[in-house]
């Protein structure tokens, strides 16, 4: 019984490998853009506090839209394919990332930041040496959420021809192919574990450097 699953996996190795690589591609590109965008947005919010409510409300509103609906809305503008998928996934991530970055920074004792500023640290030094290291655990929690949600929703993006593991899952559902559904799911879950592990290593390295 289990042998049948493994022989199916080995027999269709290229299919699974290609889908997995595509999936990793979408997730990686999405995460890189998401992190950069959320860094810029949080920086803007720290400069102009009135932006916080507007942006967080906006992204929480978008986050509430089901992915299928958001894909459908964007197809007339950006067409089919992984470009549209990356846009949608990036916008979803902004809610998770922004919320956590801001929660992390707001959670710091104001006296600590005040002391740093009063001692003559520049705003950039305060951000790099005080705010980011102290907010790091909360920001990392947001990143983990973003990775999980991106890897999951990216599978749905197969319905707009974005490629990835969703292709295998959807085709498995259409043809009632249990092997495809099971392996597609398992690989998705393994991907999340892998990404989470990489993030953990990165976090440890960055924390060491800052100290």
């Amino acid at each position: 019984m289990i042998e049948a699953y493994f022989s199916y996996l080995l027999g269709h190795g290229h299919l699974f490998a290609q889908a997995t690589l595509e999936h990793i591609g979408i997730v990686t590109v999405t995460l890189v853009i998401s992190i950069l965008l959320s860094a810029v947005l949080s920086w803007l919010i720290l400069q102009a506090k009135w932006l916080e409510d507007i942006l967080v409300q906006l992204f929480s509103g978008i986050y509430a839209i089901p992915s299928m609906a958001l894909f459908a809305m964007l197809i007339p503008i950006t067409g089919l394919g992984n470009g549209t998928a990356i846009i949608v996934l990036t916008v979803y991530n902004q809610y998770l990332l922004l919320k956590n970055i801001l929660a992390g920074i707001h959670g710091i004792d104001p006296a600590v930041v005040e002391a740093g500023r009063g001692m003559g640290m520049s705003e950039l030094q305060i951000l790099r040496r005080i705010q980011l290291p102290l907010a790091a655990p909360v920001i990392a929690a947001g990143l983990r959420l973003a990775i999980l949600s991106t890897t999951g929703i990216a599978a749905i993006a197969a319905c707009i021809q974005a490629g990835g593991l969703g292709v295998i899952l959807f085709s498995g559902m259409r043809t009632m192919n249990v092997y495809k559904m099971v392996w597609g799911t398992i690989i998705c879950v393994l991907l999340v574990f892998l990404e989470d592990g990489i993030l953990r290593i990165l976090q440890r390295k960055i924390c060491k450097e800052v100290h």
Partner: protein
Amino acid sequence: MKAVALNHVNKRFPGAACPALDDVSIAIEDGEFVTILGASGCGKTTLIKTINRLQEVDSGQVLLYGKNVQDSDPVQLRRHIGYVIQKAGLFPHMTVAENIATVPRILGWEPDRIRQGIRRMLRLVALEPEEFCQRYPLQLSGGQQQRVGLARALITDPPIMLLDEPFGAIDAINRELLQDELKRIHEASRKTCLFVTHDIREALKLGTKVMIMNQGRLLQYGTPAEILKQPAGDFVRQLLETLHRDTSYLMDGAGI
């Protein structure tokens, strides 16, 4: 030359009923230990924050050794003014040594000079370097944290120190000890200190000069003896009466 001079300084926070600083003028001699006394929200903290430009004045001038602070870059200016706040504000993710090394590192001191400075400062505030260097702020008592806060502000040997109720959250016995040590440090270094407090005993004990403020106005500036002998106006008199009332009430109660 005066160490610190304020000329007709005004400051009002948006939406506040009364100004935080109402036409405040004062000239402080070099080496003076000035305690700033007044009720909460009377402008004491705002006053010292205009000196290191954590607050900007609406009008008037703040001069340090004759130089208008407006002409200095605020970040550069602050690196040469010691600043200690109530809860010490130590960086919780850094050790005691790293906390004290903050400004020297920014100023680019040699590692050896920083290491020696840290040890010297810790001894100055009566903490054993071997024991405390590698500890984190959370492993210290409130009094010890405040000692580290002092060491961190003193390491660059700034000519002016601003202290914003540094001992406000410390128990009475440790506060006494810290006051005595600060007094000793001041007598040895003759730095110009501005020390905010709402504790009249502390103000009279530490200050070579005492500054009394109410509702943004400077009511009296003089030596503790002058203030006790000739209180300027009702507010100062009332403030001094609280000093007597507390003890005499207790003494009466105890039949002394």
